[in-house]
């Protein structure tokens, strides 16, 4: 029987093994207990765990006011509960119990080993890609003082990466005692570079293919990249298990996406002067793109009569005209 006291993030802060049938493990605030908990909601003698002959564990509550819970359920005061594994809550302290009945799988491959080994190289590449994007965006505007603007673009990108990675490194230091700066820089910069360059390339491709929906797929891909980056940051910086980390990263991605969406909608919605010009023009793309005939296009314009009428109906529903109909 292995008893672990579980910390804030689900990690074991104390681990103790008990062997031999009939071995008892007393839990409580009393110093005579086998596992002493520092918890004002726990009784001095709170619960008794007994290893049975068949290897399972009997959990009994020792008549406390708050009771003892096994996997969320209160243990009956008289009978107790027999378990193979589970989470026992004493007061507000969580204990994980495991017995030999629980099968143990083979070890997981540590997939982040590559990143860890080449973190210097990867961090450098990522930062360069981000700085490059910042500089490229500035260069596109063909500024009058090229050197200054391009430098500014690169530095702003680096600064943002540094700020973001710094916050994660600090969290890591607080939780784990190490900084892992290069790892966080790698995750942040490569994630950001993928998003930035990816979006630009997707825009180019969507125009070349004359397929505006591709931009939405690009946005979805960016969402996945953000999710992955947040997941990796959290895994490095906290003790949360995989599932918990994934849930947290997913929630954060959803929140970020929702905020971005609300901002975009807020800018767009109901603006009668907004004109959607389609994907940006790429000069020189003509050779990749099959053109339509002018009469074909004008036939399509007829559909705008209906589309405009729909917009009017919508607008009348949202804000009815004062005495429109007699």
């Amino acid at each position, binding site marked *: 029987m292995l008893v672990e006291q579980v910390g804030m993030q689900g990690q074991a802060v104390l681990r103790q093994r008990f062997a031999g049938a009939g071995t008892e493990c007393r839990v409580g605030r009393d110093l005579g207990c086998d596992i002493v908990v520092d918890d004002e909601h726990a009784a001095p003698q709170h619960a008794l765990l007994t290893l049975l002959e068949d290897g399972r564990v009997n959990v009994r509550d020792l008549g406390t006011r708050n009771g003892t819970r096994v996997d969320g359920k209160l243990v009956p005061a008289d009978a107790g509960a027999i378990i193979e594994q589970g989470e026992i809550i004493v007061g507000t302290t969580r204990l994980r119990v495991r017995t030999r009945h629980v099968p143990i799988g083979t070890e997981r491959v540590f997939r982040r080993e590559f990143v860890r080994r080449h973190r210097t190289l990867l961090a450098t590449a990522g930062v360069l890609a981000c700085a490059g994007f910042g500089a490229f965006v500035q260069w596109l505007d*063909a500024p009058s003082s090229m050197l200054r603007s391009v430098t500014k673009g690169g530095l702003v990108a680096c600064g943002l990466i540094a700020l973001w990675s710094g916050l994660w490194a600090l969290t890591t230091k607080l939780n784990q005692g190490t900084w892992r700066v290069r790892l966080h820089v790698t995750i942040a910069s490569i994630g950001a570079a993928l998003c930035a360059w990816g979006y630009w390339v997707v825009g180019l491709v969507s125009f070349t293919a004359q397929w505006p929906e591709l931009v939405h797929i690009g946005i979805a891909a960016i969402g996945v990249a953000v999710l992955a980056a947040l997941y990796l940051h959290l895994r490095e910086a906290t003790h949360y298990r995989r599932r918990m980390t994934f849930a947290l990263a997913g929630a954060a991605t959803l929140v970020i996406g929702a905020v971005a969406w609300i901002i975009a909608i807020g800018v767009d919605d109901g603006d009668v002067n907004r004109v959607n010009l389609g994907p940006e023009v790429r000069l020189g793309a003509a050779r990749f793109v099959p053109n339509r005939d002018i009469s074909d296009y004008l036939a399509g314009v007829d559909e705008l009569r209906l589309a*405009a009428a729909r917009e009017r109906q919508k607008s009348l529903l949202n804000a009815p005209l004062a005495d429109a109909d007699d």
Partner: protein
Amino acid sequence: MKVARFVAALWLCGSATVIAAPQDEPPAPAAEVPPVEPPPEEQAPDGEQASDEAAADAAALDAEIASQELSGDAQVRLDAARDAVVQIRGFFHKSETSAFHGSGFAVDDGRRIVTNYHVVAQAVLHPRQYRLEYLASDGRTGPLHILAIDVRNDLAVVAAEDLELPPLRLRSEIPAQGERAWSIGFPLNLGLTITEGVANGLVEDSIVQRIHYTGAINGGMSGGPALDTRGRVYGVNVSVVSGRQLVGFIVPARHIPPLLARVREPMDLSLSAQQLRQRVTAQVLAYEAEVLETQPDPAATQSVQGYALPTQISPHVECSTVDESSPHVLVGVDTVSCWIPALIRVQQGVHVAGLSMRHRVLQSEGLHPLQFERQVNRLAAAPRRTGSAAHVSPFACRDALVSLDGFDARISTCVRQYRLFAGLYDFDVTVVSIDDEHQALVSRLALQGVSFDTGKKTMERYLGALQWRP
């Protein structure tokens, strides 16, 4: 520039300024009564008369009043017209204080009152929200009904059931440039007022007829009579250029008789709001059919850097080559701008039946193609569109790459419908050439308040005329 003047014209329908002013007292006589001037020589009719009948009427009137010329004194003129002029006031729901007001005057048999369409527009479009009342010189008030409207000339005929006033006589010919003239109305709700000025003839090359009047006209005088030296009405006060000195506009009186002819006995006081609104739309469509759809043959184009750019796609289009500042030091821009001003006002803040085109040919002067493309895209997306969510619904757009005559372009067409006038649309067409890395055409056609068919036809003419002939 004439257009700029019109576009900037302040419309005279005053807001609800309730400034009490004694309306019954005659204006204080001037300390020195100027000597009575001999009337200027009568001008021969200038041949633009509304009808022969009107011409005969005018001739008879001339003979009749030759013996009763009024003195040049404004006081005499005001006294002669005082009883014929009413203040027209609009009220919101059951409100006791007026929401807007203008002027009007009795014509014909004295039971019909002429004013501006824009004075009564709110009541035409929103009859459940607004009601109209008159205030006569003797203090009588009562409800007014709308009998006929002429959106193009900004005129309306209204009547009250028991109101009969001494009518003013109309003069159908345009006063000569330099003729003395007077305008009467209720400026800023300050009570009946007369101003003196000079008529400066018809505004040249304007699509809607307006007489240029150099004299003070202010908000609230809209719909009031503009009088000549013999006390006849030569026009109706309509608008003024804001921020300028005494530049006012008068609708010629020749447009009144045709409107009156439409409302001959028996008087129909029961036109529904829907009927009136349909008339507004129908009149706008008739106007734009004349102004936008007539095509010169062949359509004039202007050649810029190898592009043939349509300019006069209708005879009323005015063009100018604008010296536009370039978006970038390394980009050269040639701009040709053409327009028909939106002169028809259907509602406060809504002017329709306008056209504007702006062709811009951009030359890259050493920019990388990606950088040049960036400048082109910015310029294409840049134009500010105006329109209030109260009057128009959002745009619906369609976008594609299209082969035009000699070049490939991306065309984005956006169309939006007016909320109150389902028959009117705004068109916004942007053409951006995409086949040259060092030169690009960014051209935009904007139509304001047109029917869908007119819009599409105009757009076809415009796209058909765009060419690249190196």
